[in-house]
């Protein structure tokens, strides 16, 4: 290993904005998001990729930011919970979570909302079984799953209605 601390220059899109950073290869995405950009929505909890509280979207797909190297988002698009609302208007997924009271302590909520965002982008009309399968890796320690699934299905049903 080299004696000097190795660094890498990366450039990526963060919530729609072009950004650049100099990182150590070992730096984790969650730390870069939280410490350098002040985006505290992604939560470090299990720290082993199981709980989903640190979920962000990379190129639109869910990623475990606590166990992903920051340098691997070079050239890619990162979306955090802070990037969902626009001009003071909540994203429809956030709105559905509010309408259905789909949160208790709120710790899992950012990751949960982003996972739902990715689910609906991939499958706009999931069945309840498909929704549960997709969200299997996002744990709610308050066990408030019923309201979360209700919120997801309200969006699926909305989209089921004929245009």
């Amino acid at each position, binding site marked *: *290993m*080299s004696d000097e*601390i*190795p660094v*890498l220059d990366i450039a990526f899109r963060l919530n729609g904005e072009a950004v650049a950073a100099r990182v*150590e*290869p*070992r*730096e*984790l995405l969650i*730390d870069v998001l939280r410490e350098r950009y002040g985006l505290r929505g992604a939560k470090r909890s299990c*720290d*082993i*990729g*199981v709980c*989903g509280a640190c*979920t962000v979207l990379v190129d639109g*797909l*869910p*990623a*475990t930011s606590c*166990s*992903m*190297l920051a*340098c*691997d988002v070079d050239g890619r698009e990162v979306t955090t919970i802070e990037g969902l609302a626009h001009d003071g208007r909540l994203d429809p997924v956030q709105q559905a979570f509010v309408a259905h009271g789909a949160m208790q302590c709120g710790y899992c909520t950012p990751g949960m909302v982003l*996972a739902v965002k*990715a689910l609906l982008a991939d499958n706009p009309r999931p069945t309840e079984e498909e929704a549960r*399968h*997709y969200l*299997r*890796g*996002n744990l709610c320690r308050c066990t408030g799953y019923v309201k979360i699934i209700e919120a997801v299905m309200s969006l699926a049903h909305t989209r089921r209605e004929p245009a």
Partner: protein
Amino acid sequence: MLPPRFDLHRPRSLDEAVALLARHGEEASPYAGGTELLIALKARVARFAHLVDLKGIAELRGVRAREDGGVDIGALATHHQLARDPLVRERLPGYAELSGNIANVRVRVAGTLGGNLCFAEPHADPPAMLCAYGARVQLRGAQGARVLALEEFLQGELTTARADDELLVRIEVPGLPRGARACYRAFGHLERPAVGVAALALPEGKGYRWRLRAGGLCGRPTALAAAERTMAGLEPAAALEALARTVEADAGALEAHDDLQGSADYKRYLVTVLARRAVRGALGLGEKA
């Protein structure tokens, strides 16, 4: 937690990657999805001064049709890609289904099949089914290339035949005879399977010749050999009876130990249940009966 400091190398070709691995020996690890490696580095159960990032190597990508009707899978293919790949869904529908059920969506998006096999964590879904299919792995190292049966490549818990300077390049899944069918069934309370059983049915006589592999509870996928022998060539109903008579003895002979996934006895029991479900699934029968 931050992993310990390492140098990150980003080779653009297989030759360059192999040269890096040869130069740094056991100080280096190949790195792709990171779903296993980064967790191990953070926990300090593994330590490498050099990571060789394989994601920029085009030769490790792609899923291609084989002339024998099978599929060649580049080591960098992710579980998410394999679950959706049209060729995999057409030729290996049971494997596409397995890929879509691995761990959680984040692991499927980042995790690669090559990494899964090289890490050789027993509590994993792909090995049992790929062993039932008779899959082979192409390796490339400083000394040249070789092809091994996956069942020889996987040697035990976290142990493979891969040398420090070798890379798993491609997984060859050979074509199956017309009428062959496969099914994998797994169960676990955690994200990883406590037990998984793969059943491959190859037409023979009035029924099938069976390849049954149990994984998860033992260090590497293991054949349910007595069941395979007694079921061979029998019509479906008779094959299921033969399975019921023999699978307990097969399960009892499996290496298993008590862990978070359950007691050894419980996991051996799961083998009997999941073997029945996988065989019924391969036969196109309802699985609960």
